[in-house]
């Protein structure tokens, strides 16, 4: 059975999306809908906004993000997610590995053309 582009993307998203969330949070605390809005700008990253929340719950459980509730001028109070020191370290580790990894994959694919 040949994989569809969607299933290939879904496989690649696993394990990568959480670091995209951490990278976004490095810019500052953010709330769920805002994070979803940033990630869903590129449909290859986030196809359904709801799938972000199990991921955020896992990140919180791992201690990579922490939450605080803040009042909003518009609408109900919001749960803000903040990157922790462990989360920042995990992001650094990912970023250090990602560059060489993505270059290697690109080289292999280029050579195979």
């Amino acid at each position: 059975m040949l994989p569809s582009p969607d299933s290939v993307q879904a496989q690649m998203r696993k394990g990568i999306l959480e670091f995209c969330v951490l990278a976004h949070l490095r810019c500052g605390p953010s709330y769920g809908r805002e994070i979803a809005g940033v990630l869903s700008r590129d449909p290859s990253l986030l196809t359904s906004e709801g799938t972000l929340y199990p991921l955020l719950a896992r990140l919180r459980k791992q201690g990579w993000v922490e939450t605080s509730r803040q009042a909003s001028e518009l609408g109900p109070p919001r749960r803000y997610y903040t990157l922790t020191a462990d989360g920042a370290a995990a992001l650094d580790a990912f970023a250090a590995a990602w560059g060489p990894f993505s270059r290697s994959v690109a080289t292999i694919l280029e050579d195979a053309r």
Partner: protein
Amino acid sequence: MTSRPTHRISGPTQALIDAYLVDLEHALSGLEAGERDDVVGSVREHIETALSEYDHEPTVHEVEALLGQLGSVEQIARDAGDGTERSDRNPPDNGSREGGILVALAGLSLVLFWFPLVSVPLALGAGVAAAISLRGARDPAKRRYRIALTLSIATVLILFLLGLGLVAASSTGPVSEPIENVPAPTG
């Protein structure tokens, strides 16, 4: 504990949202209660925040579109399940199992301290491996590596002190007391 969005929501739209959240809760029944409540609460908050951005009462069509962007509850549950499976399968991957083995080896070296030819290499091996693995390790593996390292150091220290004691005892030798001349009894 449902906080209502800023805008008044009509019966049918509220029913849509409630049904979606109930379905989501059922779909996530495989998760721990705390994690399930966390996900459902976050999705509820997402909906409320989105609805508060409208400058009018959201229509059924708009709410349907919003729920469509969130995705099906099955899809969310599948993603949540994937993560749970990953996190269940992977903790030993971050060194928990290796940490446990090193603790066992270091503990064994301490128990066998009376057999230094066995316990010293065991303690040194476990200690060095634990010290190397400590770098970059995360809890709970980190804690296990620390325990292994402590046990290894304790073993080596005990053996060193024992050896020192034995060397000191053997080099001192028996103490000879001076012989006193006792005068012979007279009469």
